[in-house]
């Protein structure tokens, strides 16, 4: 079983979101980066579990500049066998998918497991794009994944519930909560990560979208406090003022 796990690095949720250069660039000063949570906790760990059971290897792939390597090393410390860095900043979802698909197309991966979304640009898109580029089945928003006999069995979210679906390998899956439990890298993992292979490959440059400008949502008006004894008033406000009931 050969599994490819695309991982992203993102600002920690508690980071201050601000912009520079006329609101065209995200201000990275004082921002702490982390591995994207769904990638670190769910897709990577599930890939490792599958390989531990079935044999094979897990390759992590990341598009980003050289300062991303510490995050790639963290994925190696958690247990991935080797890593690839596509040497360019990630600015457009299509471009990232294109580069991952370009790398993957002739390597014989059985599975590509992405996270459902990155917590910075919230795209939910890279997995589906890779699937279409590689012309393989895609199952999105998967909360469980089993592989056996050349097939993947996946629990996928639908409105108000889930469905169990089966697709043939090779395929692309996007992972979310439920798929695995977070693993904390141990000392042995951290030591061995230093010497695991990390290849750097050049990037294709084609993009389909770009961000022109950012802005911040309108500030919330101050909360209206309501006497806990007077829920009639709350209901009335929701009806008359907010018009939501």
């Amino acid at each position: 079983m050969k599994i490819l796990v695309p991982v992203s690095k993102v600002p920690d949720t508690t980071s201050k979101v601000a912009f520079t250069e006329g609101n065209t660039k995200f201000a990275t000063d004082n921002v702490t980066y982390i591995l994207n949570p769904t990638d670190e906790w769910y897709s990577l760990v599930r890939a490792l579990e599958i390989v531990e059971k079935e044999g094979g290897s897990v390759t992590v792939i990341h598009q980003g500049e050289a300062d991303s390597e510490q995050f790639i090393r963290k994925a190696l410390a958690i247990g991935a066998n080797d890593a690839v860095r596509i040497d360019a900043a990630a600015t457009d979802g299509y471009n990232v998918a294109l580069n991952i698909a370009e790398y993957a197309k002739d390597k014989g991966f059985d599975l590509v497991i992405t996270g459902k979304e990155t917590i910075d640009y919230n795209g939910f898109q890279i997995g589906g794009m890779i699937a279409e580029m590689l012309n393989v089945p895609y199952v999105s928003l998967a909360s469980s994944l089993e592989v056996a006999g050349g097939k993947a069995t996946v629990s996928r979210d639908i409105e108000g519930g889930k469905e169990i679906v089966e697709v043939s390998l090779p395929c692309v899956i996007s992972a979310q909560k439920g798929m695995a439990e977070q693993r904390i890298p141990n000392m042995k993992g951290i030591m061995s990560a230093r010497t695991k292979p990390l290849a750097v490959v050049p990037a294709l440059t084609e993009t389909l979208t770009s961000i022109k400008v950012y802005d911040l949502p309108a500030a919330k008006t101050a909360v209206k406090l309501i006497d806990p004894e007077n829920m009639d008033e709350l209901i009335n406000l929701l009806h008359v003022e907010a018009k939501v009931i």
Partner: protein
Amino acid sequence: MSVIAYIESNNNRVKKTSLEAAYYAAQTAKLLGTEAIAVALGTHDAAELAALGQLGITKVLHDANARFDSFDSGAVCKAIATLAANSSVVVLSYNQNGKAIAPRVSVRMKAGLIPGATALPETNGDFVVSKNVFSGKAIAHYQIKTDKKVIAITPNSLQIVRGEGSAAVEAVSSGVSDADFVTVIKSEEKASGKIALTEAELVVSAGRGLKGPENWGMIEELANLMGAATACSRPVADVHWRPHEEHVGQTGFTIRPNLYIAVGISGAIQHLAGVNGSKTIVVVNTDPEAPFFKAADYGVVGDAFTVVPKLIESYKKFKASSH
């Protein structure tokens, strides 16, 4: 070069998220001086499809192939791309299925995608569409650089307006063959009678402040009365007080209901990330310093165990008087 809206139905009713897509497509077509055409695949009710005319759709292309009733992202993608061959923009909801379809359509049509648009496009000059980023902490205005475009809209981000009109429903074949369906659906599990969280307009949510799963009766009672869906914070789902389908936030679902009532939830940034797009937020918490009050429109500083029962009584009175 028309604008295409992709339509889904559930139990023969067009989904609310698809009504939003139809309306968005019609408004975009107006901006571009063209017509809006809907694409519907699989089993749909003809009258429901014709009624899309009220939202500004002129024509519905309906491929009634029942194989589409089992969802397959690749087959749907191929069908949309085929039927949209002469269109410039494809609009669909970024609901659960949309998240699987839209990225594929983007690649297949070489059309730049906005994954989760929250407003109509700006079409004077560059084609620009806004989308929430950083879990709602900012808005990015994306330019789509390609001639063809895919816009996947965030559920509940625009108010639809109905007018007059009826769309002509035309039976078509989207050229998809049996071999294009590669997903086998083994089983489906739906909480029956419950309102789907991601589609709900009203949501009642509770967190660790409720102390234990046995105390959720009042939350469910309030939700049932209001016709609301129930949600919860992550720790509550993690310890299985509530099912994981209810977990909202950065690692759970992102929702934008008209009303979000949060009971006994502190309002951590990771929780807010999933709910801060809600139109109106009500917070019930014993701690006046709880961060959630900063994100709330209405706040009740009080004990959930006395406030929620009072709220239920007040809502009952309101309902009785308004009927």
